[in-house]
């Protein structure tokens, strides 16, 4: 059986034209959801791989406007559900509702904004729903039961479970700790239909195999950036497609 994956890419990395190829390789490789990160100058939740990608994307001339153009080019080749990941400042600068409205117009399915948690969200969750999109709350293993309960009570369609402490990229060992955490979420969710997406440090098929029965989809991000770096930014389609085959 093939696994469901949410594959993450940084818009305008390794450059504007190639990022469409990265998306195409992920889609052709069988990705279920595409997560497109709009780069920010100060990505505090991200490890070195994604930081490097964001810095390079900004040097390549990424602008929010161009990010939406990229979404539109991807939409032209596929109807894969697209999630935009960005930091709160990007929404605030555009105007939170204006940004969400723009996403909705481009057929974006959801938004992942790690530094806008549900209780400091600048209207993200309410406005996303108003525009027919899903804002995806991120939870971490350190979360207490009451706070988890508060998040689940909002009945999000998707939930992003960060599988360990720290930042993106560093490899995560899948074991009792994080499986226990995923079980805790499922138990707390009860009968609510919440799709759990799990990520942080997922780069190998074995990890995805172990997660498969506990999650709706596994998220892979930094691993693709490393794949692109290893290929020196050349032949990105073939490299990313090959990585997809390894994972799925």
């Amino acid at each position, binding site marked *: 059986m093939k696994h469901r994956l949410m594959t993450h890419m940084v818009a305008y990395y390794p450059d504007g034209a190639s990022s469409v190829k990265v998306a195409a390789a992920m889609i052709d490789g069988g990705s279920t959801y595409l997560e497109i990160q709009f780069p920010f*100058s100060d990505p505090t939740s991200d490890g070195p791989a994604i930081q490097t990608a964001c810095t390079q994307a900004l040097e390549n001339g990424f602008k929010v406007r161009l990010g939406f153009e990229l979404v539109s080019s991807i939409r032209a080749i596929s109807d894969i559900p697209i999630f935009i990941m960005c930091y709160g400042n990007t929404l605030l*600068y555009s105007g939170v509702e204006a940004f969400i409205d723009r996403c909705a117009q481009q057929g974006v399915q959801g938004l992942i904004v790690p530094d806008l948690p549900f209780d400091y969200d600048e209207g993200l969750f309410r406005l996303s729903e108003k525009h027919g999109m899903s804002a995806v709350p991120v939870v971490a293993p350190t979360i207490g039961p009451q706070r988890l309960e508060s998040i689940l009570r909002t009945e999000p369609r998707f939930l992003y479970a960060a599988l360990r402490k720290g930042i993106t990229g560093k490899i995560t060992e899948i074991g009792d700790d994080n499986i226990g955490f995923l079980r805790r979420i499922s138990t707390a969710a009860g009968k609510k239909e919440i799709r759990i997406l799990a990520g942080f440090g997922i780069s190998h098929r074995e990890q995805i195999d172990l997660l498969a029965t506990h999650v709706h989809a596994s998220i892979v991000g930094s691993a693709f950036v490393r794949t692109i770096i290893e290929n020196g930014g050349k032949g990105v389609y073939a490299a990313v497609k090959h990585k997809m085959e390894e994972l799925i």
Partner: protein
Amino acid sequence: MVWTQIHEPHRNEEKQVKGIYNDYFGDFGGRYVAEILRTPLDELERAWRESMDSDAYRSELQDLLVSYAGRPTPLLFAQNATRSCGGAQIFIKLEGLANTGAHKINNALGQALLAKRMGKGRIIAETGAGQHGVATAAACAKLGLKCRVYMGEIDIRRQRPNVFWMELFGAEVVPVVSGSKTLKDAINEALRDWAGSSTSTHYLIGSALGPSPYPDMVREFQSVIGREVEEEMRRLGLEVEALIACVGGGSNAIGFFAPFLGREKPRLVGVEAGGRGSGTGEHAARMGGFGTPGIVHGYKSLFLLDDDGQVGKTHSISAGLDYPGIGPQLASLGREGRIEFTRASDDESLAAVRFFASHEGLIFALESAHAGAAALEMAPEMPENRAIIVHMSGRGDKDLFILAKQLAGKGWRDFLLQEGREDEA
């Protein structure tokens, strides 16, 4: 000298400062962090509140502030400066005389002691000019805590002497090479460290910014400065027209101003880095129309952003003032008009260093010299029976290399070259 009561929380007694626990200041503040940092911040807030109510904690901190940091710091009547300027009497709060050379020690001791109470044996900190790093490293040496300081590669070059002191105190100084390689990137790196290490580690933020409760907590630890000033004003019967402080993130300013925030007088003046011009990337002034509301480093405030919402470039001769954001309470009080903001350029600040050195025998830190420069401009416009108080938040020993290069010229360069040659030989 009157001993001021340290750490008597001022609760709900003044109109604009609603109390010591605010979270938001008008539109600004908040706790905009990834979920992984939420639990440690909630824990920190609980621990801090408990500490503020604990006599044992407060008395231990009081002892350290007196016997280790050297509080209270003096308020000096700058007679020669006053005579030279004409106009208002210039007083200087000599916070640079505190151990480790700046106000930063007040907050470093407060938080390090709090971390110890919380059972956290490791401290991480960011530093720009290095003064907060030095204060944190010293506090950790004194209290027996492990210490790692993140510092931008460019700041390391600008403030090399402070790196040496931090390492001598036993801290590990980690150069940050991402982004602009300055303070903002050091904060990013510290936040990333904390996301993975919070169980055993306390993040000791050095300015009155970041996610709540930091802006409230840092202000409270620094408000000892303002309380001492208030006490001296009363003792000397001063008619104070204005208090003047430099503003980077703003911890020295908010601490200096704290007791006066809820009153109409005196005027409170924040001086930002005017750098070398008013163009993009030439200065670090967030107020006066330059800053845009944003969310960076876990809080909402005014930031210098580019035309696509990315954090913008800044410049200042002083490494402690080139941060692109401003503490949320200062931004809010600036909007309300309680705090006035002005700017001093690199050159004006250098001139102020020279002026106070030759007139008063004081070496202002380049940061604090921005406040000094504003005072020299304001004093002549005011009557002689009024006073202004300048906050010398730090002393300038750390700036030796920058100052000597700017002010001593070729002789200093020759000396460095000769030292280098002798070292090699």
